[in-house]
């Protein structure tokens, strides 16, 4: 988990062209949280991990957590935000998806996590297929 969060963090650091790094960071964290299913795991532990690796504040993480718990997280909005920040560049999107893919298969792989990853992946790529 640490390793993959660092990859996202590095992706953000290396993106001089990102217009709004904060938006990108929050949208990335939201999609990761959908995949790893923080409802089922330990939010506090994840909150600390996201603070450490993505520099996400406890409040930002809590907002994502509440949205997920209330089934109110808008995946389309987060996907759009990342696509805009990555200038809809297919190479960059694929790099980002490779990292998301790793979250789906962390500690083995559950059907729910993998389906969530597929759903997000196809929202990013449908126009390229």
């Amino acid at each position, binding site marked *: 988990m640490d390793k993959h969060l660092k990859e996202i963090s590095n992706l953000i650091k290396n993106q001089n062209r990102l217009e709004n790094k904060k938006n990108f960071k929050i949208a990335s964290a939201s999609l990761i949280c959908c995949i790893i299913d923080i409802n089922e795991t330990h939010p506090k532990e994840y909150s600390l991990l996201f603070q450490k690796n993505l520099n996400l504040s406890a409040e930002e993480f809590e907002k994502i957590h509440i949205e997920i718990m209330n089934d109110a997280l808008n995946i389309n909005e987060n996907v759009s935000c990342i696509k805009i920040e990555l200038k809809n560049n297919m190479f960059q999107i694929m790099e980002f998806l490779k990292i998301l893919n790793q979250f789906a*298969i962390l500690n083995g792989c559950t059907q729910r996590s993998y389906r969530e990853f597929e759903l997000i992946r196809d929202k990013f*790529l449908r126009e390229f*297929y």
Partner: protein
Amino acid sequence: MRLEKFTILYVEDDEITRELIKEILEPSCKKVFVASDGEEGLALYKEKKPDIVLSDIAMPNMNGLEMSEAIKELNPEQPIALFTAFSESAFLKKAAEIGVATYILKPLDEEQFFNSLNYMAMELEMNREAVSQNG
């Protein structure tokens, strides 16, 4: 469809499923090779060098995971997808360790199946483009 440029090796021990998936794949791919277990699949892989490998997990002689491990030893970059109903958690943990990151969920949803294959094809195209730019 991106797949038409790529060859696929499909490994499945159940004959009816094997023929069905082969029929689904053939119109969209450059060539489809089929094998009925991991041992045959590995031999065919060495002979044909397919672009993408698809395999079931539970099979006689050599299972899909053992075959994937042997293929990854030959070519660590080889894209491999495993068919799974997600009931084989120990296998899936091992699959992730050997670098298999794509899964085809059972029961098969044809649209999702092709989305996953197209995703693998895009990864392949990008990797090849990166290699040609660097080389």
